[in-house]
């Protein structure tokens, strides 16, 4: 018996000894919490925000966003493209930086851009999303006198083409097509709507085989990009390590500022799905940076003595909003007065306090209040006013019955009851709180609302099919583009316009906003759009998140911003440990 206990004790001791060592940390590494594995780092796929952040360390686009200044800036390109219009075409002329080099020392030239566009349009590759997103680029014209200059030929015209046309990672031709065989196939052949058969082009078929065999999903280093980092380790579901290149091309430049700055020698993304564990890891010093901290934890940490001593806390007004949408295609929400009435049942200030501890801000509509020139501040913010809701319901012909419920006669002589459901992603505490608040407020004035928490895949198909009354969801905006057609144009019904809203006037206004190039006139149209959306109320913006970030005190120059991921990993300077 005693031997058994000794043996057991020894086993546990052997197990514990190595664990007593604190986690190793290299002082030149910046360790960031990631909530999940990026799954694939294939530059053609970019399945999520995390993959996007990682791919930005390995590859470079022609243009990128300076998150802090919130403007598009040239990255591999010398400057933003020169725009020319020719009939129904838009011509965008770019010139690549003369210093830009691949890892093997070869300059990055226009042929690499043409190669990338061919890869993005080739059949048999995982490029469906990229191909669709950049389908407006029809052809590329190379400059015969300047290897670094080229013109993208784009179908139609839209102000967004200027930056959209440069927003994809440029791939090295030498690594995947050393014999330059793809140069024999014009880009225009691949971008035509009718699919190209690989059997017609044996050269292309060979290339597709080579690309797929490179297994870039897990081994992006088989296709070395021009970015400042190399992926040195990827333990699935655990961590990714990026090491700074010692001879990155931008190091030779005399003036170095973002996005051509890469300070940390090593970046470790530690995958910790659970928030409580991530918090513990931050407090133990196992990670240096915890982005998107939940509101409660952020406040608790910010007020604790240990937290104040070891960490710095940042918030930034984001463009990510929580909104409620109404199904405008079916009774009882197919009239605007009923929808307006429901707007007054959301207690937005209380919701901001309850779900975000006050770290969010309201907005009159889809335009962010940070965009002062475009935001319609003449519109009042929505207030919690059930009495006002009742007034509007009566105007919409609803009558309160003896039992407290609301009914109205329909055109067919039948009686319609005001009973609703609210659909949202199951398991999301913020949505649950909002749904409960709405249900309680509605119940007070006699409107029964049933909660329908739904699994996310099912939710998407239900929303697309219009099988709901009210939905809750988050939507990411940005300060660059104002095309509302995916969510509010009648042509997007059954695709992504879940509210199924769309009147001839709203469709016309949305298209006018997209086409308008003059900033003053665009602002005017956008202000008009906000008024129209308040009147029609297909959606109501409840609040916009403030991003919350906690970081080790020794990290400086995080360039915290309201655009994802909320900080600039490449500019962070870790101070030496004292």
């Amino acid at each position, binding site marked *: 018996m005693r031997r058994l*206990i000794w043996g057991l004790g020894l086993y546990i001791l052997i197990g514990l000894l190595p664990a007593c060592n604190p986690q*190793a940390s290299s002082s030149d590494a910046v360790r960031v919490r990631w909530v999940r594995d990026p799954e694939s780092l294939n530059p053609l796929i970019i399945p999520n925000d995390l993959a996007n952040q990682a791919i930005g360390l390995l590859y470079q686009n022609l243009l990128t966003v300076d998150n802090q200044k919130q403007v598009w800036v040239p990255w591999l390109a010398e400057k933003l493209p020169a725009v020319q219009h020719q009939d129904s075409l838009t011509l965008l002329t770019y010139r690549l930086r003369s210093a830009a080099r691949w890892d093997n020392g070869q300059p990055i030239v226009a042929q690499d851009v043409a190669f990338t566009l061919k890869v993005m349009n080739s059949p048999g590759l995982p490029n469906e999303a990229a191909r*669709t997103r950049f389908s407006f680029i029809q052809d590329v014209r190379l400059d015969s006198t300047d290897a670094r200059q080229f013109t993208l030929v784009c179908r139609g015209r839209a102000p967004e083409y200027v930056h959209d046309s440069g927003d994809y990672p440029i791939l090295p031709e030498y690594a995947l097509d050393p014999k330059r065989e793809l140069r024999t196939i014009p880009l225009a052949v691949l971008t035509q709507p009718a699919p190209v058969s690989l059997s017609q082009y044996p050269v292309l078929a060979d290339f597709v085989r080579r690309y797929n065999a490179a297994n870039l999903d897990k081994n992006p280093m088989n296709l070395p990009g021009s970015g400042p980092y190399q992926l040195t380790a990827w333990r699935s579901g655990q961590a990714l390590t990026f090491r700074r290149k010692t001879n990155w091309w931008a190091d030779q430049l005399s003036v170095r500022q973002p996005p051509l700055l890469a300070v940390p020698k090593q970046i470790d993304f530690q995958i910790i799905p659970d928030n409580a564990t991530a918090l513990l890891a931050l407090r133990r010093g196992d990670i240096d940076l915890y982005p998107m901290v939940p509101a409660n934890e952020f406040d608790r940490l910010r007020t604790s003595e240990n937290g104040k001593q070891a960490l710095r806390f940042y918030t930034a007004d984001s463009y990510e909003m929580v909104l409620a949408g109404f199904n405008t295609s079916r009774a009882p929400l197919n009239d605007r007065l009923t929808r307006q009435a429901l707007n007054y049942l959301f207690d937005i200030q209380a919701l901001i306090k309850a779900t975000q501890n006050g770290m969010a801000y309201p907005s009159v509509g889809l335009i962010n209040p940070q965009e002062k020139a475009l935001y319609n501040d003449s519109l009042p913010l929505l207030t919690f006013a059930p009495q006002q809701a009742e007034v509007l319901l009566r105007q919409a012909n609803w009558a309160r019955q003896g039992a407290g419920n609301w009914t109205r006669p329909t055109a067919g002589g039948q009686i319609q009851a005001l009973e609703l459901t609210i659909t949202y992603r199951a398991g999301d505490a913020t949505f649950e709180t909002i749904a409960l608040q709405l249900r309680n407020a509605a119940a007070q004035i006699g409107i029964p609302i049933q909660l329908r928490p739904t699994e996310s895949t099912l939710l998407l198909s239900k929303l697309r099919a219009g099988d709901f009354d009210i939905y809750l969801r988050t*939507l990411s905006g940005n300060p660059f583009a104002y*095309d509302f*057609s995916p969510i509010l144009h009648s042509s997007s019904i059954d695709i992504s316009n879940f509210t199924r809203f769309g009147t001839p006037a709203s469709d016309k206004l949305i298209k006018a906003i997209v086409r308008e190039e003059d900033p003053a006139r665009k602002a005017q149209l956008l202000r008009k759009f906000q008024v129209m959306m308040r009147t029609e109320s297909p959606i109501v913006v409840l609040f916009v998140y403030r991003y919350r970030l906690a970081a080790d005190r020794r990290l400086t120059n995080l360039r915290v911003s309201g655009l994802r991921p909320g900080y600039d990993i490449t500019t962070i300077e870790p101070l030496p440990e004292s």
Partner: protein
Amino acid sequence: MGRFLVYRLLRTIPATWAIVSLVFLLSRTLPTDVLLGQALTDKGLGSRSITAAEREATLLRVQQRFGLAGPVFYFSRTHSNTGTVWQWNGTDNQYHRWLSNAVQGDLGQSYRSGQPVTAVLAEALRFTLPLTTSAALLATLLSVALALWLVCGGPALLLSILYGIDALPLFVVALGLLLLLANPDFISLFPAYGMGQQATKNAPGTFKSALICTIARSR
């Protein structure tokens, strides 16, 4: 005995085939829209809109790449003006391709990461197997030792404590262990997550090092 075992094993084959076939066919009834990824859904505002035709064409290309286009089974049913028509699809169907690959050991590829399913399984088993076997071994040794101790007159309070732990939901035990043994305010003995940063370099010792917390959390 040997014949009995072989007989029992052979009997599981049809059951396994029926279950995996059912799972396969059920999985094919799920919407494939998610495969389009976030690029084509509408999480972002202000991005360029796509037409219904573009969306359909993209979805078809995704389905073709993943082998999800074409008939699912040997026969299918179509509805037309003349009524329901049954159609024989021959061996050119998704189920036939999947089954013939599966019996050769090719379980297909992950839609998310593009990796072979066998590789994904192997990677997970690399951690699952040592953790579960160590946990089972430790649990057995500990339970035998504690049982003997109690029989030989160990403290009765111990039994009450063990009953108490058994009654608690596992996630509470896991969270309690995490906050107790990986907390800088209490006992910072274990790594808070994963296998520890040193872990991959000296693998054998580290499985034990993270054992208790990881097992507790993984359950």
